[in-house]
């Protein structure tokens, strides 16, 4: 039996940067090509150099498959195809093909224009990359070459999300990407036929979580909005432009329609308008209700939801505003928030997870006074609500609960340790390593000792040890010193830390990069 080899280049143990390499029947397929939101360094993108040490990617990979347009599944695509260099086919569904470049461009703008990063992919690269895309339809069997065939199935989750079956001869792999088994207001449930794969690669972030009843959550949200509007208050819903925002729009739109409400709903313009256009277009990808009624009226032709204008925020009377970005860290949503925060009749509803340090995170953790730039203090009188679970999209890192394994052609849900034991595998430790160059002409042991004493003096709260073999450990972080192969005057410090110790690890690295303090007086 030919073996199937799976190499996760990302998303193995953490969330984000999905990129999985599968070798099946002599064919190499790359599943997704995502980026990691949490890093701004090289770890942002998968390490493509791992695939072929020096050879061309095009020679090695038979195809690339993108499951959906979220950046953690497609964000590294232009980098991969244009900067690293790949000219083979990239398969994705039509909606993904349409929406993906919009998101990539948006991401590029933020990275280059706002953060001023150099060496990033350009707009032209996005365009060139999209030229390599081959669009597939649902249930269409695409013959990549004589042996390799792929087939897409509906996955829910976001518009155009798909699960893929990859088949070579009698061997097959199913890759689910992110998928939803419960339909929501705008998308249906994932479906696949009994294809009996040899291997199933599935998303399992929420595998062991019991969701609340979907309707319960929706009702809660609607009730909050409705009550505030009836009181005459204004509701601010900070959202990200795509995906769940549309679901909330549909939810409010139908509720307004049903309940005959008159208060205006606004949606901040820009990216969203473009995206809404695609939602209108790809009606076959939506759920039963929208598909059946679009002949009378396309549900995305909102009747009650209008485009927002900056001046509207000062209008009297109740209103609901969807504004970007979702974590209240900048832009329109923050502006509106500052205007409305003082009135206790108003309400802000945070529909998703907020990263630490953002205004969204602060207000959710109960802070009632915010220091804004220019030493202003903003007192928050408006109500702050959080609908946890309505949008399970929030990609917050969490520990793996369980593993779904296939055994005797049955699925079982077991703990990860149990799974490893049954499969006879050793647990893989995800470690990050970093090289720091130091100008130090002394011997390695001495360098290590200097590092040890330096760290010891700085990190009082941590356990710093100097091991007999010459390496230094800070908690679980390992630091080794080695001589540079070419330049004996330079020493290379190898810093390695586990995924869990990211914070301390990056701190140490930055510390070491600043260099060591001048050698104690005993020297020269």
């Amino acid at each position, binding site marked *: 039996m030919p073996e199937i080899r799976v190499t996760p280049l990302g998303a193995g143990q953490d969330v984000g940067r999905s990129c999985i390499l599968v070798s099946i029947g002599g064919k190499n397929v790359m599943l997704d090509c995502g980026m990691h939101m949490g890093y701004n360094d090289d770890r942002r993108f998968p390490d493509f150099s791992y695939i072929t040490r020096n050879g061309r990617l095009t020679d090695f990979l038979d195809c690339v498959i993108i499951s959906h347009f979220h950046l953690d599944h497609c964000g590294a695509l232009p980098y991969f195809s244009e900067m690293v260099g790949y000219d083979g086919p990239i398969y994705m569904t039509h909606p993904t093909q349409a929406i993906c470049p919009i998101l990539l461009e948006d991401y590029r703008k933020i990275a280059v224009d706002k953060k001023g990063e150099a060496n990033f992919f350009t707009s032209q690269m996005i365009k060139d990359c999209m030229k390599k895309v081959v669009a597939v339809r649902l249930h269409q069997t695409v013959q990549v070459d004589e042996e390799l065939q792929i087939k897409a199935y509906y996955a829910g989750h976001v518009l155009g999300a798909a699960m893929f079956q990859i088949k070579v001869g009698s061997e097959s792999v199913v890759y689910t990407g992110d998928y939803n088994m419960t339909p929501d207001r705008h998308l249906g*449930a994932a479906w696949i036929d009994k294809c009996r794969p040899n291997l199933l690669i599935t998303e399992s972030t929420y595998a062991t979580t019991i969701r609340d009843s979907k309707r319960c959550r929706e*009702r809660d949200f609607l009730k909050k909005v409705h009550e505030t509007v009836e009181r005459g208050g204004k509701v601010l819903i900070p959202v990200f432009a795509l995906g769940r925002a549309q679901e909330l729009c549909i939810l409010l739109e139908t509720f307004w329609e049903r309940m005959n409400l008159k208060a205006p709903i606004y949606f901040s313009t820009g990216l969203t308008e473009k995206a809404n256009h695609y939602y209108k277009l790809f009606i076959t990808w939506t759920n*039963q209700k929208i598909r059946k009624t679009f002949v009378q009226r396309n549900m995305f032709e909102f009747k009650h939801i209008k485009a927002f204008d900056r001046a509207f925020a000062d209008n009297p009377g109740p209103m609901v505003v969807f504004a970007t970005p979702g974590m209240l860290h900048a832009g329109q949503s923050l502006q509106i928030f500052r205007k409305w925060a003082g009135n206790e009749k108003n309400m802000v509803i945070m529909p998703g997870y907020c990263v630490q340090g953002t205004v969204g995170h602060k207000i959710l953790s109960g802070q009632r006074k915010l220091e804004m730039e220019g030493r202003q203090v903003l007192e928050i009188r408006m109500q702050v609500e959080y609908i946890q679970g309505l949008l399970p999209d929030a990609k917050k890192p969490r520990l793996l609960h369980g593993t779904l394994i296939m055994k005797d052609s049955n699925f079982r849900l*077991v703990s990860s340790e149990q799974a490893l034991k049954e499969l006879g595998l050793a647990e893989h430790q995800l470690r990050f390593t970093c090289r720091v160059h130091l100008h130090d002409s002394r011997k390695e042991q001495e360098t290590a000792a200097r590092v040890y004493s330096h760290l010891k003096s700085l990190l009082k709260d941590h356990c710093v040890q100097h091991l007999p073999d010459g390496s230094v450990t800070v908690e679980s972080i390992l630091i080794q010193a080695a001589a540079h192969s070419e330049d004996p005057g330079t020493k290379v410090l190898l810093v390695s830390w586990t995924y869990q110790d990211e914070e301390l690890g990056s701190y140490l690295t930055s510390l070491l990069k600043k260099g060591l303090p001048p050698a104690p007086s005993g020297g020269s």
Partner: protein
Amino acid sequence: MAAHLKKRVYEEFTKVVQQQEEITTKKLRLTKPSKSAALHIDLCKATSPADALQYLLQFARKPVEAESVEGVVRILLEHYYKENDPSVRLKIASLLGLLSKTAGFSPDCIMDDAINILQNEKSHQVLAQLLDTLLAIGTKLSENQAIQMRLVDVACKHLTDTSHGVRNKCLQLLGNLGSLEKSGTKDAEGLAIRDVQKIIGDYFSDQDPRVRTAAIKAMLQLHERGLKLHQTIYNQACKLLSDDYEQVRSAAVQLIWVVSQLYPESIVPIPSSNEEIRLVDDAFGKICHMVSDGSWVVRVQAAKLLGSMEQVSSHFLEQTLDKKLMSDLRRKRTAHERAKELYSSGEFSSGRKWGDDAPKEEVDTGAVNLIQSGACGAFVHGLEDEMYEVRIAAVEALCMLAQSSSSFAEKCLDFLVDMFNDEIEEVRLQSIHTMRKISNNITLREDQLDTILGVLEDSSRDIREALHELLCCANVSTKEGIHLALVELLKNLTKYPTDRDSIWKCLKFLGSRHPTLVLPLVPELLSTHPFFDTAEPDMDDPAYIAVLVLIFNAAKSCPTMPALFSDHTFRHYAYLRDSLSHLVPALRLSGRKLVSSAVSPNITPHEDPSHQFLQQSLERVYSLQHLDPQGTQELLEFTIRDLQRLGELQSELAGVADFSAAYLRCQLLLIKALQEKLWNVAAPLYLKQSDLASAAAKQIMEETYKMEFMYSGVENKQVVIIHHMRLQAKALQLIVTARTTRGVDLLFGMCEKFLQEVDFFQRCFIADLPHLQDSFVDKLLDLMPRLITSKPAEVVKILQTMLRQSTFLHLPLPEQIHKASATIIEPAGESDNPLRFTSGLVVALDVDATLEHVQDPQSTVKVQVLYPDGQAQMIHPKPADFRNPGPGRHRLITQVYLSHTAWTEPCQVEVRLLLAYNSNSRIPKSPWMEGGEISAQAETSIEGTIPFSKPVKVYIMPKPTRR
């Protein structure tokens, strides 16, 4: 002979090809053997198989009489043997099957031939068709055991065929004809009686999914025919649940359900453990699992069947609302202690009860199998399904199960409330109805009530009214709940003023159900103050009336409440008691003169004085048979007047009173008509005088149609009397015509028709004839032989004397009778703004009407539009436009399309509802018509219509087209 005829016809009509065919068929039908002969000729003429097929197809379109079937069959068989083309043979085989179904034809003679040709047939398709034919024959001859056995034998032989179609048909045959008793009489010919179940069961594992499906269906067919299925089938069927094909799974779910109903208490082992559970519980778990099947067809099927599994144990039932097992890995890790806690806290986490006889060894984490999680969360999944069909099925099942188990009803409440927020209106409506049906079992908590009341703002009228109905029979636990409900209802009233009646009615029931909860709210609701007089509220305010309706209905069973009323409240009570007597009950108000004299409710209808009055007045009429004509007329007139007034006063007697009055009116008209002077004078002189008599005849006819079709609850006894009256009216008409027209031709036809009617009457009501002693028809039937032979003039003379001599028949009153009525709510007919539209195009007019006591409104209720130019249009509403909010009530919400040529100024059109009837529907259908297109037309044909709603005027203005 037929050939000869045809030849002649050809000669005559060589030019008009179309016409020629029509006429030939007509003529051929008259001669008996022609059918088969013509077919024979056609088939002989056919040069190619395609031709022959065309002839056969044409032939199949026309009916064949029972007498000529045999001949046709012979000819078909003859051709079958000669035919080489399988498609033609296929058609012949299918024709044989159709023909053998003809009523009055016994197909045993063709069975041998059919079996014979079956043995030599090579084509699989033809074989399948032949088996189908045999099935038709076998079904026809279901009494004959030997034939059945033989057919079963044939089917068994062909079961090994390679084609799935043939195996399918064989299984179908076995299912339909397989012998039911295993120990049936041993046949002398040595045909061993086969165990049909076993044979069919073997095909559960056929390689073709279609055959597997057919096998399961055959098994179900056996069950339907009354054979008790073996329990062993259960395990086989369970394996089929994981089949790859949805139709197999769907059928298997059905089969499992059937077996679970047959052996609910049997014990089955749980695989991979040493425990056992009841079969019905096991089956329930398995069907629950199918609610998350990949195919929505199977999901719908499974969800529907769950509703009818009432024997299932309660803890399995309650698991369907709980998803915990699916997920809770952490709990499983320390399974034992956790399990105990769970058990003591009354939660359930697996298919078995923890604790009693659970295995003692450590629970292996790996043993928690997702696939066999059974009943867990079945409804949670069903209610959140992607397809609304599944959701509706789940809601229905929930309703049925909750009706049989009150604890389950309590538990599923939250889920039902959640469904009020579904995106599809149909689902929301269904869940509200479901909630209403189970509301006797439950008491609503305040938070639940709050959610429910939120739906009152829904813009759909159906939803709001369903919700009002729900509140009518809901149990509320606290006074805050009542207050909340009232506030929300009043909010609803201001937002949608058209809901007024529905809201008042809802508050009436809310008040009468919760008197003790309303009591503490009274001062606040009436805004009375202990020291000060408050302003008197506006009596015409619908919201104030709503509050009063709630309070007065509560006060009915709470005697202390009136003490809290202020003076004006009593005055308002008196006013409302008069104006809205159906909403405001009679109160016993001590020391007040306002006590109304309404009947106390504990008097049964028969002791009710008004009912007695009705009886007496009717008896008076019937007993006074021999009063002088003048007196009879007067008495009838008075009685009719009395009855009409009674009907207006007592709504529950309105049906009976109107019905009786209508009958008396017919009698009165008849008597009046017979007393016309024209009868004594020579006919030609009184041409004009006859107007009154013929008008009377016409009116009687109309009244009798109304009596027959406008009342629900009319029984056969009354129908006879009504038809009798109509017959008398027809006789009267005949006599009048005879007297006023000259010439015999017309009269001849009428006479014949009348005698046919009499004959028809006799045939239809032969059983009731003994009750009609001394009546018109009784005498008529005595003289029937004489009438048939005599000339029209004589017939008329006889009829005239008989009509005068006949006695007045007593109309027995039916138990429950209600007059059909309709009210058009919309259009309201008050608008001054004409509906403008471009002439030649159409405009849609929304029509909303309530119908009461209309039977089968889908086929009888029509909308009529009358244009000012006298043009009338009848519109047939779609069956889906009718809703059934309660027993005896219907609601018609439809759109009527109006169109007209341009008018110079706006004008009014009239819209009204009609009740269509067809008195011929009582005629037993001729066998030949069965299933044909012709009969479908006959059924929908309308003999006449009765307007039964007030017309509403709509102002419209068709504008000329702009060019």
